């Protein structure tokens, strides 16, 4: 009798948990759908397992296995094509598997950008910096202390990050920013609220609007 009670209780807890998950997923879909409508974007809530293939250069979309994007929101905001989404993947170490979920936004531009990674420094980065290894150091001590910047082309990193952009990023919300040809992704290891998508767009557009005018001319010359 006691065993049956425990099993029924566990089943009820499981069902309750599933209901809560479904309700919160439905609420999220509704909030994102509303956000899309207010910005004139298309909203597709269905999971898409091939989504990462559209962006082969962004390593964050090719981690682990059982990958899929959902709640994909696409369209134009201002001058740029935007694609915002939630992303799921799983990692395993033999017995245990772990789920990872994050949100991201990809902005497509007509500028032929080069690879560049900008993210906030973690403990290991700070330790590596102390030993003189790791990222590109900038003249702003505050920026270099806070941000890890990596690019195969050092000059490109300096061109994209003039003094005004460094100051802007120091005052902006935290995102991992990755540049690839004509595309920039902004993400962090958590699910965004609708307002976070706006912040991510603002950060990317803030960087692009602060590109030195001569660099912009060079890039537009190449892009044409």
């Amino acid at each position: 009798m006691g065993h049956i009670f425990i099993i029924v209780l566990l089943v009820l807890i499981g069902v309750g948990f599933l209901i809560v998950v479904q309700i919160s997923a439905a609420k999220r879909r509704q909030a994102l759908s509303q956000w899309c409508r207010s910005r004139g974007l298309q909203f597709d809530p269905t999971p898409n397992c091939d989504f990462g293939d559209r962006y082969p250069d962004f390593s964050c979309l090719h981690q682990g296995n059982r990958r899929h994007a959902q709640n994909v929101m696409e369209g134009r905001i201002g001058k740029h094509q935007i694609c915002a989404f939630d992303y799921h993947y799983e990692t395993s170490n033999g017995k245990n598997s772990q789920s990872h979920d994050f949100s991201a936004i990809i902005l497509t531009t007509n500028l032929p950008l080069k690879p560049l990674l900008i993210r906030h420094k973690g403990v290991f980065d700070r330790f590596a910096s102390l030993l003189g290894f790791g990222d590109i150091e900038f003249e702003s001590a505050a920026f270099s202390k806070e941000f890890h910047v990596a690019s195969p082309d050092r000059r490109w990193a300096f061109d994209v990050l003039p003094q005004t952009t460094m100051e802007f990023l120091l005052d902006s919300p935290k995102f991992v920013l990755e540049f690839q040809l004509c595309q920039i992704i902004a993400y962090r290891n958590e699910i965004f609220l609708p307002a976070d998508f706006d912040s991510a767009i603002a950060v990317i557009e803030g960087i692009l609007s602060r590109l030195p005018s001569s660099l912009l001319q060079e890039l537009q010359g190449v892009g044409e």
Partner: protein
Amino acid sequence: MNEGYVLIAIPLVLLVLFALMYNALVRGRNTCDESWADIDTELKRRYDLIPNLVSTVQGYAKHEREVLERVTQARTTAMANRGSPQSQAKDENTLVQGLRQLLAVAESYPELKANQNYLALQAELANTEDRIQRARRFYNANVRDYCNRLESFPSNLVASAFGFQRREFFEIEDVSQREAPVVNLAEPPAMR
């Protein structure tokens, strides 16, 4: 037997570390040279613009001979300079001051300000200034990294043993930058 391995391994590890530090210093020195060459290219671009700019202004402002001659002279001096970055910077700053005066003179001639050729040259000059500042910033970053290696332990030992020399920073003014007004803080402003 084990002691024999240790005796061989220690000098081998030291040799590898030494080679890595030496190569990093050589790489740093070469990067400084390359980025200095970029600055040189951008400065040449500015020298090439100046004769056209001077002749365009001359067409409208014949009475400003002194300013025009000063710019031409400063350009000749800067072009002839083959010295250190600091000495080059001194000549470039004289040229920048001359160019600022030239642009200020042009402000007093509405017909010149409306001239399409002058406007195109002014835009090209602004673009070139931007390129110079980008190249300068990258050069100074490379010099800073290189000097850090020259002064940090243990690479400073390798640097001094092989005579690696410090490089100078390159600090120049921007034509578009205006000088800050001098504010006298000693006297309180007059009350109205």
